[in-house]
């Protein structure tokens, strides 16, 4: 097991952080989240052109940079730290992981290169109202008519569903679970932007009413979905760790700078101990995340439990630290103009995105053989 990053990996982190400091400072994030599309296309293009971020974990045969999940987690950590509003989770993580987990070599050759270089924005439509993400209760159906597959049903919590050029949809074809590709602007597809807790991440519902779709080859779709979600869970946990780190840093800075009763509030044990507990949460979250990312690359048999572990720990830790960040800031932390609520919103939203804590713990218990 290796939980320490190499020098090259630390350099990757430094360059991503520098890039985001320059091109996506908080003032810019504030502007971007007010726009209808909710992300910055120019930044997205530079992420691909300058740093190849979107294709970080896509093998080079399909136009990616060919790195692993450790590198991907570094990128996600930095995106989470800077709260960058972008379809990265949707396209580079969820949709890419789904395509990579399938057995459809033609689709990979055809679709992955343009996703890896950022030209195409893709997303994964898996969740449904009343059902989880894991594909056990999929009500969306796929049926063949004379011209091909047609989808009926409704998907929800589709990350960047409105921005996506390409949708990877999980649907039931008779008794079988399957993956389908739908063009973002296909006829008989109704896309609705949802009002959301997280202002920096757009979620949509998708209504399919006889939408034309292409079926992807998958020998064992449930297994592929599970693997795709496990890898995406590790990436999301990394993003949560990054958000947590930002919250810890700003809390400590504020506790040093803000004075009440004639001294910095960070000298009072009540505030100091809150910050110390945040630091403990950060150190443990980082350890868990490094392990899960290592397992994703080097110990695939450990990935299912490791992914659930990382999601469980990082979700709880990030939300706790985000909430305590508001507490350390006091009244100013509750103001719209202060960034604390953006991270608080992100923390709660991410905690519940790919299955909430109760589902994740049950999944973990199953995977541990309890």
């Amino acid at each position, binding site marked *: 097991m290796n939980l320490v990053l190499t020098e090259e990996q630390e350099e990757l982190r430094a360059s991503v952080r520098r890039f985001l400091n320059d091109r996506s400072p908080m003032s810019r994030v504030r502007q971007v989240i007010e726009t209808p599309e909710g992300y910055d296309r120019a930044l997205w293009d530079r992420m691909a052109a300058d740093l190849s971020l979107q294709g970080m974990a896509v093998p080079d045969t399909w136009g990616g940079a060919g790195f692993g999940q450790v590198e991907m987690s570094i990128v996600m950590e930095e995106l989470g730290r800077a709260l960058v509003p972008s379809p990265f989770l949707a396209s580079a993580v969820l949709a890419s992981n789904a395509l990579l987990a399938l057995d459809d070599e033609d689709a990979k050759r055809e679709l992955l290169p343009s996703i890896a270089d950022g030209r195409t924005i893709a997303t994964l439509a898996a969740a449904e109202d009343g059902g989880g993400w894991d594909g056990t209760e999929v009500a969306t159906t796929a049926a063949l008519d004379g011209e091909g597959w047609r989808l009926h049903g409704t998907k929800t919590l589709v990350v960047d569903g409105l921005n996506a050029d390409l949708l990877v949809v999980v649907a039931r074809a008779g008794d079988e679970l399957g993956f389908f590709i739908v063009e973002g602007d296909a006829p008989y597809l109704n896309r609705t932007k949802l009002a959301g807790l997280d202002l920096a991440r757009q979620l949509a519902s998708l209504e399919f009413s006889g939408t034309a779709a292409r079926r992807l080859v998958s020998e064992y779709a449930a297994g592929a979905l599970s693997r795709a979600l496990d890898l995406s869970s590790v990436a999301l946990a990394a993003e949560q760790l990054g958000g947590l780190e930002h919250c810890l840093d700003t809390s400590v800075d504020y506790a040093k700078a803000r004075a009440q009763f004639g001294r*910095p509030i960070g000298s009072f044990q009540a505030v100091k101990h809150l910050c*110390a507990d945040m630091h403990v949460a950060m150190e443990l979250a980082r*350890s868990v995340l490094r392990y899960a990312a290592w397992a994703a690359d080097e110990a695939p048999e450990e990935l299912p439990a490791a992914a659930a572990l990382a999601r469980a720990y990082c979700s709880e830790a990030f939300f706790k630290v985000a909430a305590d960040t508001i507490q350390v800031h006091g009244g100013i932390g509750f103001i719209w103009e202060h960034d604390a609520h953006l991270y608080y919103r992100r923390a709660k939203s991410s905690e519940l995105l790919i299955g909430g804590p109760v589902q994740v713990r049950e999944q973990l*218990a199953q995977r541990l053989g309890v």
Partner: protein
Amino acid sequence: MPEALNDFRNRARAWLGANAPRRSDDDATGVPRRWDLDSARAFQAELHDAGLAGIAWPTAYGGQGMTPAEQRAFDEEARDFDLPGEFFSIGMGMCGPTILDLGTEEQKARYIRPLLRGEEVWCQLFSEPGAGSDVASLQTRAVKDGDGWLVSGQKVWTSVARYADFGALIARTDPDRPKHDGITMFVVDMHAPGVTVRPLRDMTGGATFNEVFFDGVRVPDRNVVGEVDGGWAASIRMLMHERVSIGGSTRPRRGATFGSLSKLARSRGMDGDPVVRQRLAELYVRERAVHLFGTRLAQEARHGRNPGSRGSVGKLAGAELARFSAGVAAELLGGDAIAWDSTDREAARWAAAVLSAPAAAIAGGSNEVQRNIIGERVLGLPKEPQVDRDVPFRELRVGTQAGASRQ
């Protein structure tokens, strides 16, 4: 030519397999086999003869002169065995390393080898009834007497004092200086006239700790560790060794663990209960997070990054885990956690897990002290204003000392 790491690991594994008792998995509560002092000493001497004690300690004083990498390899191999750590962990984890850091040539030559061979057991004499978290307010005095010192006072919370041959003692040598400045560290002979050890019965009913009384005990000058009146720096050094040895441990936990409690849930037919499953998963997450942090700290140390005050993170998280896991154990046991057949040893051990959990949050620096350390030394937050820092010790109101009339 030095032995390759893998060869060393194989040698350690082979020796342990042939000579050390295995940890037993049958015992759900995982209470280790109890060593008595004689067998523990004999084992430790054999371990040293085999070149497996003091692995990263200098050869000049009886160590093996290898690196922390070999020590970690040994620790990893030793996980599956019950070694007699309880008698020697204070000496090996705290007193020995501090003497190596600060001791005189004579002290290193005299004390280290017998310590490593288990011939001499060590204890640490810091805490006092009036000096707990604020250990610098200690009142035990060492008064100059010819070529030595006369020590009088009381220490408390002293592990293994009953078995100890030597103790690392801090005492006040100059009460006219501020409290941190007038302290000196000594090596004290626990068999000297005037030393009285009394077991301290704790809330579990057991007596891990002791009270130690000093009544005019003579300690020669050559037993001063570090500088006269420079004992505070020596104490900090020793406490850092302590936190690293507690918090940086990657040894699997015993007692109320995810593994033992999953077994318990299964044996009671509770493992299908969704609430029980949630609690077990939660326990796994916390336990694994603490363990992975310890592993990461050790790996970072291997890459040359000193854990320093971050040992406090593991110590604090471990203490919180102990309380949480004891709580899960009690939830699963229900009524059996509060009353059991008096011959049921397993039930008694679960109760012991509940009763011993508070100790983890106090011993070796309370959770609050750890949070101060993390806040101040890791995060750089300012200290609280200290009213007693620059005042001569004798004017302070501490312990049984009334202090000056000043406010």
